[in-house]
């Protein structure tokens, strides 16, 4: 059997080039994303727009494309690193950020906000309702799984909550079947996407930067947590504190990403997996790589979706993610 979530396929001497390579790819993708769209811009006009030398180009670059690009980068980094954290937490490479109901809580919150008409009152209401829903869902899981919150209990509570919140979302959706416009808005949101993102959305996504910074030093502890609680504890990890931190950070990252981009699937599963195959399982390496790798994946998917005539981000990531997941299942020992 070839390397499957065990060995790495890159020779050790190449591993340190992965992060610079990803950063170069990300920079390239940013330039491509600035130039492509309904109104294609030449490299010269992008440059002029960036320096405010060309007012039309400047508007397109700074008001339309840049917020969307930054949203894609932040959302990708958040979902991918949240997936990495969940996989270490549950010691399962198939864990994903939505496992504990954070995403479906966010979806339920957003759908209720749209259905109730709050979303049209202010730009801030939809994302804030999504965050409120996500946080409520996590709170629900933690309460359901109290008393030390064993892994199995957390998982089962997550399964139950996901089902419950899915039902809430479907119920709301079914109640507005006649109201085409609101239903379309809900559906639009549930498909996940980065259209019309503004600087306000970038501002909403800023907690992702803080969470990523807090995640950075946890890499080594996550290595040990992935061995199991007893082993981590015997090797000196403050298990209760690190578990709390991991859950809190994964929740914030997922909730904020969901609030900004809607329900975007599979990023948190695919990106950490590919990176683990490339560079091995050590989280000190994987944390920075998953942040940048997730940004690259989501930005590339968003560009691909735009080029394919406005295919939604959530559809593209799943179109790539789901076949990968099936391939993975087939390769499981």
């Amino acid at each position, binding site marked *: 059997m070839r390397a499957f979530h065990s060995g790495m396929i890159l020779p050790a001497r190449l591993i340190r080039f992965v992060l610079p390579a990803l950063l170069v790819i990300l920079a390239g993708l940013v330039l491509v994303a600035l130039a492509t769209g309904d109104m294609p811009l030449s490299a010269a006009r992008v440059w002029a727009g960036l320096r405010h030398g060309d007012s039309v180009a400047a508007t397109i670059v700074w008001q339309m494309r840049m917020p969307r690009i930054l949203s894609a980068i932040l959302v990708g980094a958040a979902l991918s690193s949240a997936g990495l954290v969940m996989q270490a937490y549950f010691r399962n490479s198939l864990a994903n950020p939505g496992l504990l109901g954070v995403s479906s809580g966010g979806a339920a919150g957003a759908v209720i906000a749209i259905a109730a008409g709050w979303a049209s009152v202010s730009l801030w209401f939809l994302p804030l309702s999504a965050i409120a829903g996500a946080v409520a869902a996590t709170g629900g899981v933690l309460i359901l799984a109290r008393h030390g919150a064993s892994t199995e209990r957390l998982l089962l509570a997550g399964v139950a909550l996901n089902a419950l919140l899915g039902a809430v979302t479907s119920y709301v959706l079914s109640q507005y079947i006649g109201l085409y416009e609101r239903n379309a808005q809900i559906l639009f949101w549930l498909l996940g996407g980065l259209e019309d993102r503004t600087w306000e959305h970038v501002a909403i996504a800023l907690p992702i930067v803080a969470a990523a910074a807090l995640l950075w030093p946890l890499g080594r502890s996550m290595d040990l947590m992935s*061995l199991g*609680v007893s082993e981590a504890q015997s090797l000196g990890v403050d*298990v209760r504190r690190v578990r709390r931190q991991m859950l809190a950070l994964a929740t914030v990252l997922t909730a904020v990403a969901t609030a900004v981009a809607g329900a975007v699937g599979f990023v948190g599963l695919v990106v950490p997996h590919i990176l683990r195959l490339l560079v091995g399982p050590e989280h000190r390496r994987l944390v920075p790589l998953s942040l940048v790798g997730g940004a690259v994946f989501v930005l590339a998917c968003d560009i691909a979706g735009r080029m394919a005539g406005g295919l939604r981000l959530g559809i593209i990531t799943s179109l790539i993610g789901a076949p990968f997941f099936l391939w993975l299942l087939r390769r499981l020992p």
Partner: protein
Amino acid sequence: MNFLDLKDATVPGRLDNVTLGLPRGKLIGLVGPNGAGKSTLLRVAAGILPAEGSVAWNGRLLAGISPLERARCTAWVPQEAHFEFGFSVRSVVAQGRYAHGDDESGVDETLARFGLAALAGRPVNRLSGGERARVLLARAIVTEAPLQLWDEPLAPLDPRHRLEVLVLARELAQSGSTVFLSLHDLSLASSLDILAVLCETRLRAIGSPGEILTPDLLLDVFGVRASTAPSLNLELP
């Protein structure tokens, strides 16, 4: 002073009022039938399973010791380990230095000592059971913790590696550490300094192997009849 003191340690249904003290510099065996509570006792002693009663290391109550300091005082080898992710053998052994700021001190020497140098780059989830058991032992040794708690470290090992591990354990004890290990092989157990016998979650007896491994106790606790007929005796060349 004892290195480890358990007083009325109780885990409901798994361990019942166990009081014992383990002196410094001894090689101590823990024997008992399946389900007697050996793993539970070792986990309680390692401070990773909360228990009623008290656990003290070197006279200090376990509850008052920080996680990092605990890891520098004691090393625990689990009976079996599940590695979801394929860390290299070397990086698993180096995890033993987490509580020492990941300084990697002694990692390569210990790998060599356990015959693992050639496997250092191999993913740990692609090793045989015996190789993995040696990796876990190497990680425990690398911690340099003076209290070593090993849960059936010998069971997956071949005869030669068993003897090597016992020699190593003896060296650790001679250098002042306390090695407390559970095992099923009573003839190996008879070569240790002290034996503790657990039976049905209670401490049945503790003392030198000569006092403990009497025909009566063997029949009563293990349901086996002892004979002193000539047997195969293995030692390192």
